[in-house]
């Protein structure tokens, strides 16, 4: 197996996902098959090849740092699952 159950659980935690016990085996198998396929990349000689993260050669895209009103507070909060007094509400963070 390319990826163990424990690794799936570890990665899920990094990704803030809760993986169902019943699903872990299936996921490990599916991800294992995919990762095994990815190993074909090892056969490519990439010594000295620069990595590409952006297909169009562009350097920094600057604009004037000008103030603009995109949303007002109400519209920014309109989709919030929980809000109060113009703020987003989240579960208690500090004990």
């Amino acid at each position: 197996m390319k990826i163990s159950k424990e690794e799936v659980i570890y990665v899920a935690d990094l990704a803030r996902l809760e993986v169902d016990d019943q699903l872990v085996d299936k996921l490990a198998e599916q991800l294992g098959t995919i990762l095994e396929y990815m190993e074909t990349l090892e056969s490519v000689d990439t010594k000295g090849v620069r990595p590409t993260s952006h297909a169009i050669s562009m350097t920094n895209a600057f604009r004037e740092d000008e103030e603009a009103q995109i949303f007002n507070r109400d519209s920014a909060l309109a989709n919030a699952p929980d809000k109060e007094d113009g703020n987003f509400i989240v579960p208690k963070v500090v004990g």
Partner: protein
Amino acid sequence: MKLHELTIQEAHRRLKQKEISSTDLTRAVLDRINAVDDPVGAYITVDGEAAVAQAEMADAAISQGRITPLTGIPVALKDLICTKNLRTTCGSRILENFIPPYDATVVKKLKRAGAVIVGKLNMDEFAMGSSTEHSGFKLTRNPWDLTRIPGGSSGGSAAAVAADMCIGALGSDTGGSIRQPASHCGVVGLKPTYGRISRFGLVAFASSLDQIGPLTKTVSDSAVMMNTIAGYDASDSTSVPEDVPDYTAFLESGLNNMVVGIPKEYTAARGLDPDVSTVVENAVRKIKELGAHCVEISLPHSEFVVAVYYVIAPSEASSNLARYDGVKYGYRDKDQSGLMEMYKNTRSKGFGPEVQRRILLGTYSLSAGYYDAYYGKASQVRTLIIEDFKNAFNRCDVILSPVAPTPAFKIGEKVDDPLTMYLSDIFTLSANLAGIPGISVPCGFSSEGLPIGLQIMARHFEEGKLFKVAYNFEQTTDFHTKKPQLFGNRR
């Protein structure tokens, strides 16, 4: 010809001559949706009332002599393009009730041009899929055979255009998500050059690959839509400040002096269906007859394209989708015993299985100890794939290939076999990795009567060449005039 069957150009001509009104046209499209969307399932949201109101405004503008090529034309949008005050779900339960407070730049441009926005179209959740079976809401069926998938992830867009439930549509393409459904549904689908169209207001999947583009009934309609939506936008720092040509100027006859390249790796590709192979070969022959010169080219790293893409795209997705945390918008789970529990429950219940699979894959590829072997390596091989295209385009103007290795497959056939599904993207992924434009144009039918598309690719910002080749091919064939037989609501 019934009103809903019109192309953008023909509808525009009739609107301009005042032979029809936008209100009549829009009502005809809405009636068509009522009649056939029950079996097809292309729409997530239909906004009939707003559409008629926009049509009335368009009619008022036309009566005052104000008309653009899109004024009064009913169009629909893949449901990951933000529309102000109109629900935008991205095919996901996590955004089921999301009402954007703003319009995407493409939507602003369409509205400014007077287009009528009919509704929002089904898709694979977060555009991750090749069949639209991964929508969090429903299946979309292929109008040519309701037991088959329409392709994906812009399956709703392709099906809606094919079944005349809109006059034109927008989709998005990260690894073939416009071209492959266009091929499966027998319509024209264009993935423009990376950065050619603003992505402001496009829900992000993989930011170095995503691009918005049109799905239309004809090549000319694709050029007309591009004239309106292309161009630099200060709100999208990845959009490119290149001048936008008049794309319709490329729609002229003659392919003399055009050199088309055929990649030898593609003709030998594993799993290529014999019908697809024959139909595409016939199309290449036709293009030669039209005056183009044909050369064999090589894209030596083609066999690594799927592996590179399925490292890079999920990696970028795992980062982009971190924003769905149940705080600012979208679904939040009821169990909120702590912040971490809230995040985890929200994301696990809000995202579907394919999205979670890709987030896990991407997180793994980026995690400490694996980054160099996966993401780093894939980014280097991506450079080699780009070099392959540069070398190939030294010898030819455009590259021809199939869009998908097979015609549309049966619903359910590949849904639980992710790697097989990924491998079906073999011909389309490289255009996204290289950032080049690609178009799918109808080029024939399988022995079972399913549409097959021809892919044409060109250098960065050479959409004009795609239009020229596709238009010349289309003008000498009648594949684009064929319609699926749909008998309306069968209940």
